[in-house]
């Protein structure tokens, strides 16, 4: 089983990397870019076959380690 986790900065938290990406894209002439945000993509390979149970565990991993609730939120997709 695989879990794909997206970790992104909460709205309102300043995102220096995203801002830099947007700035660089503008400089390159991609003026259609209004804003950019950068987050993390984490993929886990998991043993077991109960997707619901696995997802609950992954949710725990996200809350405990993979994201920082002060500045980040996350979403999980199982496959």
């Amino acid at each position, binding site marked *: 089983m695989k879990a794909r986790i997206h970790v992104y900065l909460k709205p309102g*938290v*300043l995102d*220096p*990397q995203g801002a830099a990406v947007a700035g660089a894209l503008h400089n390159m002439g991609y003026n259609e870019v209004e804003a950019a945000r950068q987050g*993390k993509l984490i993929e886990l390979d998991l043993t077991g076959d109960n997707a619901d149970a696995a997802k609950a565990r992954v949710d725990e991993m996200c809350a*405990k380690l993979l994201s*920082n609730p*002060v*500045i980040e939120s996350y979403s999980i997709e199982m496959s």
Partner: protein
Amino acid sequence: MKSAVIVFPGSNCDRDAHDALKRVTGQAPAMVWHQDTTLPEGLDFIMIPGGFSYGDYLRCGAMASRSAIMPAVIAHAATGAPILGVCNGFQILAESGLLPGALMRNAGLNFVCEKAPLTVANSNTRFTSAYAGRSDLTIPIAHHDGNYNADEETLERIEGEGQIIFRYGRNPNGSVHDIAGVMNENGNIMGMMPHPERAVDVNHGGTDGLALFESLLGSA
């Protein structure tokens, strides 16, 4: 004063911290390995050193803050004993929830190493009492993720409660309110990005960090 330095895989200012503490307290600190689950008896002070614990992978300080020794550190903190986190140590304390806020990638995106001008925002603490009457300091910084961030409410609170201890004279990383060091509500835990342990010697970084350790010594 009996002190300890917590060592994580990837800590790299542990020796610096050890030497500075030994110089100031006259007694070598205990070096505590991250996989230990208990602290030495009778500690007066714990320092969490700088470096790149776990390579700074995922988020700076995230993995270290979940390691085996941390419950003991958190329990010790609850007794009111002083704890100082420097640079990566600050990130670890923030990740542990012992200090408010979070440290993000520097606004300029590059690693920054320089001798940073600092002001003491509150010298009425057990970490800074020996700075009383001194305002401008120079203490080296060296970090990639020192951009201090907290929500408005938290900022208002820590400003109001005098929990902001050091501010940058020239903001090197985008930190809100130029914050370089903060303290918890109880006044026993402080985190700062500048490295006071690299400023205890004329032949290396100057001596503006000495007073911090002297303050602790005085309060112990």
